[in-house]
């Protein structure tokens, strides 16, 4: 008996030790390779610096091309870079935990400058301003949008609290099922631009006239989905002239967003239209309960005939669609607004998140230098095309690219250059395809209108009562669209908002925009 018990105890203890031991083995690998990097990038010999970068990437393990890139950066900047990549399903938790416990990397990625934990971290001094380190960072300065900097001045002290992870600002057009258009004898003009009325007509036909010819009423004009916060918003805002914060046509405030304007019907009109299309089954009835990832699935499986999307995805979409239905063909189309203009709201502030330097950074200047190097011509070339020997070979002075590398988790997602839309074109792509896609991407970049608020969040919008109130907007918007509420109810909520917060909000916003516009 005793023996048995003893064995049980020992067994458990052994396992425990094994568990701990195995854990230890997986500890941080020391990168201590003091290889002298002679005269890299003409820098005077700066001492080697260790730094940790915490970011969200598709994989927590670096791929081969990622490792080679990081190595090239380390050599060029005389640094040893370690990545802390939490699982993407828990990035928010880990970020919050790091900020709270002081267990911080040198530089940390945040999804957005209005992220609540970022603002708190700035306020409490965990994230430091980087203005003084940016003085020599010409590449970061040159390849970021001006509005990105405005968006990163979050503390009311005119200081910048992050390095932009730039994204190319675009306003994308729509993917149409070309084979459906052909079947219904609909012509698209050569310049790929149609009017909003034509768009509505096509969507209605897609949903009512059996474009897939299976005799069933099972197709819908437009595919859409709920926002990440599960709310639904009116569709076709670009076409209806909703471009965020713009100069108003008069009234109490100089700058206004129709969404917040008690005197404008633009936003309620958009709500009404979406509700109407939803009721008539022109837009996918499943939309409100789908998450964004499913929209593509519905389109490829032939349930919806139009989705919005990026022009550069042509090959991927076409191949996936053809697997399901060999007749699947694609057309890329822009829709003009009601005034017939080619305009579209440029999403965001050119930021696809940003890198914030923390108070634990041992040498903030060197952190900024690393990002600056990545945007230099040399660094950018490695990011865009990869590393010689792995991603391409040089034959007869020509680069020959290896097959499409998908595993560019870190390589292609650290930094971007503003307006450099060629980034989205695989360097190995054929000239023929390039000529087909590039004009569309260019159009999407050229047609942008920017909202003047630069994602600024007035102070009042950071207070708990305001944050709690926000829910009412998504609630009423959703209800109107699905037909459970009259569009007038939006104005009622807006009125309520206006009394409680609106006046302060609008004033703060106007002051901010005024100040920025005058600075120009």
């Amino acid at each position, binding site marked *: 008996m005793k023996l048995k018990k003893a064995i049980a105890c020992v067994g458990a203890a052994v396992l425990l030790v094994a568990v701990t031991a195995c854990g230890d083995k997986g500890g941080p690998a020391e990168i201590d390779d003091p290889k002298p990097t002679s005269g890299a990038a003409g820098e005077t010999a700066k001492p080697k610096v260790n730094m940790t970068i915490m970011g969200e990437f598709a994989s927590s393990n670096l791929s081969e091309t990622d490792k080679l890139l990081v190595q090239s950066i380390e050599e060029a900047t005389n640094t040893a870079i370690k990545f802390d990549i939490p699982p993407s399903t828990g990035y*928010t938790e880990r970020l919050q935990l790091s900020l709270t416990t002081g267990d911080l990397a040198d530089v940390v990625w945040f999804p957005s400058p209005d*992220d609540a934990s970022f603002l708190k971290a700035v306020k409490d*001094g965990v994230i430091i301003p980087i203005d003084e380190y940016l003085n020599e960072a010409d590449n970061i300065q040159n390849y970021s949008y001006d509005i990105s900097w405005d968006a990163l001045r979050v503390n009311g002290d005119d200081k910048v609290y992050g390095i932009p992870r730039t994204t190319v600002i675009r306003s994308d057009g729509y993917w149409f099922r070309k084979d459906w258009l052909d079947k219904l004898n609909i012509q698209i003009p050569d310049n790929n631009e149609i009017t909003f009325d034509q768009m509505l007509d096509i969507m209605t036909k897609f949903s009512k006239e059996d474009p897939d010819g299976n005799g069933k009423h099972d197709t819908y004009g437009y595919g859409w989905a709920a926002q990440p916060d599960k709310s639904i918003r009116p569709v076709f805002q670009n076409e209806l002239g909703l471009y965020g914060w713009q100069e108003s046509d008069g009234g109490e405030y100089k700058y206004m967003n129709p969404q917040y304007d008690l005197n404008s019907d633009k936003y309620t009109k958009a709500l009404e239209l979406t509700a109407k299309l939803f009721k008539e089954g022109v837009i996918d009835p499943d939309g409100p*309960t789908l998450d964004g990832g499913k929209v593509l699935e519905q389109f490829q499986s032939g*349930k919806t005939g139009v989705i919005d999307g990026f022009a550069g995805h042509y090959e991927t979409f076409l191949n996936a669609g053809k697997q399901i239905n060999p007749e699947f063909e694609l057309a890329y189309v822009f829709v003009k607004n009601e005034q017939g203009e080619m305009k579209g709201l440029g999403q965001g502030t050119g930021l696809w998140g940003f890198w914030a330097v923390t108070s634990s950074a041992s040498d903030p200047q060197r952190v900024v230098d690393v990002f600056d190097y990545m945007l230099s011509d040399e660094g950018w070339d490695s990011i865009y095309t990869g590393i010689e020997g792995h991603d391409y070979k040089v034959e007869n002075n020509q680069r020959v690219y290896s097959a499409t590398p998908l595993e560019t988790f870190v390589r292609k997602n650290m930094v971007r250059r503003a307006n450099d839309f060629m980034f989205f074109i695989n360097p190995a792509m054929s000239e023929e395809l390039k000529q087909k896609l590039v004009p569309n991407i260019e159009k999407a970049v050229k047609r942008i209108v920017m909202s003047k608020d630069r994602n600024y969040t007035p102070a009042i919008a950071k207070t708990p009562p305001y944050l709690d109130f926000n*829910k009412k907007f998504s609630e009423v918007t959703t209800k109107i669209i699905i037909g459970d509420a009259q569009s007038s109810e939006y104005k009622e909520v807006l009125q309520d908002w206006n009394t409680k917060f609106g006046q302060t909000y609008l004033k703060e916003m106007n002051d901010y925009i005024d100040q920025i516009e005058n600075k120009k």
Partner: protein
Amino acid sequence: MNNGKASSVWLYMRKNKWLYLLLIPGFLYLFIFKYVPMFGIIIAFQDFNLIKGITGSDWIGFENFRYLFQSDDFFMILRNSLVISFYQVLFGFPAPILLAILLNEIRSLLFKKFAQTVLYLPHFISWVVIAGIVINMLSPSSGWVNRLIVDFGGEPIHFLLKPEYFRTILISAEIWKELGWGTIIYLAALTTIDPSFYEAATIDGANRLQKIWYISLPSIASTIIIILILRVGSILDIGFEQIFLLYNPATYKVADVFETYTYRVGLLEGRLAFTAAVGLFKSVVGLIMIVLANRIARLFGKSLW
């Protein structure tokens, strides 16, 4: 006198030394891993500052609680949590007991084993997948529920967008997922019944229902009561994932519960101290409920302690 009392305690301890010694590791564990971190509760009373941390942040007393009780959402969330919890207990609690008793009545050992294995399968499929199936099933365009409705001449219904269906969908999905898993503890209790009881009852001419009522149920009664008491203690714990995956702004007014609320304010808005206050409120309610439930159970001669 005192001395005598002390020595009698000492004598008692010595007599039961093994019993007390055996308790040491368990309570040491509880102390280190459960009680030590409890000091963190104090952030509910702080204006939590990232640099100053738990030990240095400024005290704000009951400010977080005042805000909670004053906010418009609080009573809606409390009501939703209570209503959903009530339905969970009403339907979700007895279901596995009934099923366990049914399984206990199966005579074929092979079928019984097969049934048990199948029944607990859905527990292993994550909520993401189960919710995905539910959403597909109820889809107004392609779900079979709506196809049936249309075949019978009705109009498709957006079930997940209608507040009146939300609780039914939620509770059904929960029962679907956890019913079989819930039977396990009752099956374990049922195995301890001495078969001679059933034999004697058969000789006395009892039918099957009578045997269930007079033998099976009473013998698992203490298990049922204990699980019920513990369930009542978690009256404000609804479960996050299933609600988060099935709700949307159209159903907020019936679906928003403490878990979804703290997710939004805590994780998305970063109000850590406030989240802690909400958690503390839930814990206190749970404590009160569990003490009450135990009192009531004691009236029937059963209790946790």
